[in-house]
Every structure is written in C-alpha cells, then in structure tokens.
C-alpha cells in the first residue's frame, strides 16, 4: 500500500494512535495526513473527544466501581 484514502485512514485511526499499525502503513497514513487538512482537523477533534466528554460530564465509574476495577486489574496482572 502506497496511498490511502481519508476513509481508509479513519478506519485505521485508533490502531494508528495506539501504535499497532505496521510501520509501512504508519508511513502511508502520516504522508496522507500531512497533505490533508481535513484529516488533520478530524484527528484533532477525534483526539479531543474524550477530554470534552470528561470535562462536560461526570460520566465515570463510582468510587466503589473504580476500586473494584483496580483490584481486579491488580489480580489480573499478578496472575
């Protein structure tokens, strides 16, 4: 793959942001975005979405829920 469309780039965006796309695809995505202001703007708003939701609401786990989750994850990592 040497080129990518906007839609193909969007489909791979989360994988790209988490660093799990192959290096050659990463290069193609970056080349596309560098020449596509629309995609650059999209990515900026895409990355901002969690922060906006977090700031606008209190949608989170309860304190008990968070503690339970932490304990679960600690057990998971130690098993």
């Amino acid at each position: 793959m040497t080129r990518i469309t906007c839609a193909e780039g969007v489909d791979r965006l989360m994988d790209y942001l988490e660093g799990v796309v192959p290096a050659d695809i990463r290069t193609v995505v970056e080349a596309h975005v560098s020449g596509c202001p629309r995609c650059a703007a999209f990515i900026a708003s895409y990355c901002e979405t969690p922060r906006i939701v977090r700031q606008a609401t209190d949608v989170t786990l309860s304190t008990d829920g968070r503690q339970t989750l932490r304990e679960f994850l600690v057990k998971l990592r130690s098993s």
Partner: protein
Amino acid sequence: MLAARVREAVERLPELYRVAFVLRDLEEVPTEDVAVIPGVEPAAVRQRVHRARLMLRGFLSDLAGVRP
C-alpha cells in the same frame, strides 16, 4: 444543560461501545486490560472505542452547530 446532553449522548451509545469508551477513554484503563473484562481481543476494544468516539464526535459537532 450541556453536561446533560453530553451525558445523554454517552448513555445512548450501544452498551458495548459505551463500556469500552468509559473504561478506555474516561478511566484510562489500558486497552489490553479493558479487553480482558469482556474476554475479547484488544483489537475489538479499539474498534468499539473508535465507533464510540465517532458517534460522540458527531453528536458534539451537532451541539456546536458544525458538520462532523
């Protein structure tokens, strides 16, 4: 008012997407750990978070009066 509408948007997400989004994006639980909870591959979590973000982004754009 804004908070209520954003909260409503999160609550309207399909449950699979909402759970993944809240854990991964709001609670900042690593993707690999989120994946263990429903017993899926990390790729499935990434896909769910991706779809949740797209849906929420569209909703937030509507609120702001701009096209996503």
